């Protein structure tokens, strides 16, 4: 039992690494994608739009397999499994984040930009100090949804053989002819998401000082 728990904690650690690394890359990448999507250049915005269509229109599991195997068929060399997972997740989640950012950015009233312009702020200062702080507050509920989904999506990494929490649980279940490890895994995911939910509640309360 103690050994099973150790194995599952190890798997959880892998899941958490996928989780945090994906966020680390997808959160900023999403902003770049959102900016591209809103670009006035037709070519840029339609390329980015196409990328978002593909990322949201095909299964993540398929994208994961593609990212892992495509380099092998094209270049004859494959990337490390874990790296493939991070790349696939980051570009997939960036697409979702980008659309949330875009919704947030476009919800800021024009009057805010006009006031900033009349006061002489640079475009950069307006974006970083006037627009983004207000966007962050507005997109929190939608981001909470996505981040919770990401916790559960880490289970897909086993598709290309990364031993994350769910794979560890399945192996243990097969070894011991028992579904208990799977049930345990469920509890692990639930606890992780409870922490994520509470964190988002906390941030939302922190941002509640203005309306």
């Amino acid at each position, binding site marked *: 039992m103690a050994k099973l728990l150790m194995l599952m904690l190890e798997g959880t650690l892998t899941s958490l690494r996928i989780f945090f690394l994906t966020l680390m890359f997808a959160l900023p990448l999403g902003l770049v994608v959102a900016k591209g999507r809103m670009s006035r250049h037709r070519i840029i915005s339609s390329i980015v739009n196409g990328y978002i269509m593909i990322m949201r229109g095909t299964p993540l599991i398929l994208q994961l397999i593609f990212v892992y195997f495509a380099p092998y068929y094209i270049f004859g060399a494959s990337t490390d499994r874990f790296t493939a997972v991070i790349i696939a997740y980051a570009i997939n989640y960036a697409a979702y984040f980008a659309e949330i950012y875009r919704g947030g950015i476009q919800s800021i*009233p024009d*009057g*805010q930009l*006009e*006031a900033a*312009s*009349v*006061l*002489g*702020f640079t475009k950069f*200062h307006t974006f970083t*100090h*006037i627009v983004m*702080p*207000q966007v962050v*507050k507005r997109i929190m509920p939608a981001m909470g949804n996505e981040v919770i989904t990401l916790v559960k999506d880490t289970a897909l990494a086993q598709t290309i053989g990364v031993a994350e929490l769910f794979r560890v649980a399945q192996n243990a279940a097969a070894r011991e002819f028992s579904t208990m490890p799977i049930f345990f895994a469920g509890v692990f995911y639930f606890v992780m998401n409870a922490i994520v939910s509470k964190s988002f509640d906390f941030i939302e309360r922190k941002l509640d*000082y*203005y*309306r």
Partner: protein
Amino acid sequence: MAVITVSQVKKSFSTLEVLKDISFSLSSGEVLSIIGPSGSGKSTLLRCITNLETVDSGTITIGGDSLVTTGSDGTAVYADHATIARIRLRVGLVFQNFNLFPHFSVMRNLTEAQVHVLKTSKQEAQERSYELLGKMGLKDKASAYPYQLSGGQQQRVSIARALALRPQVLCFDEPTSALDPELTGEILAVIKELASEHMTMMVVTHEMAFARDISNRVIFMDEGLIVEEGTPEEVFSLTQNDRTRRFLSRFST
């Protein structure tokens, strides 16, 4: 001395001609009211002067420097970015909907541009802001957030925010249209006080009695044209113009 000179300004939104050949000038210390029906182009004119909209042709000069001139082909030629950045600060703008930054305290709403645009020290900016808030009767609201204030208080903060940059001209775009009659009085009193200090102002307003009382000069606009221009007495009492009379007949000033 003219602080703002507008000459032959034209502006269209696709096929709609909003400004058809507007010319006027504003002298230092003068209070100019612009009245007229909705859609007559008053706000657009103000927005062109504050560079929120671009003109199609014509010239606008602010404090002796050209914001926009007319090129040899008849289209508008704007000054370079650095020049625009420099001269646009000479004109402050107070909006109908205040447009305060909701995530900043009242104090930060006032200091942000002083610190980041004028590069004033934080301490100096705060002193200036306290002074302005005192003048607006809002000294105790420095740490409040905009949502905690009444509409009238928010508008006074936004006037203070504009004044904090020491503009040569302060423009008001229907500053009381979002306020009830009581709060309207509050704002008009502030503008009146600024007028008594010889602040140069341009006020787009539907408050006829107010325009008559505080202005040195009144412009009546309709359908993108200046129909009449003169002293308040000339426009409100002695006008011979049919269009002006029809417009004013709806107000019992």
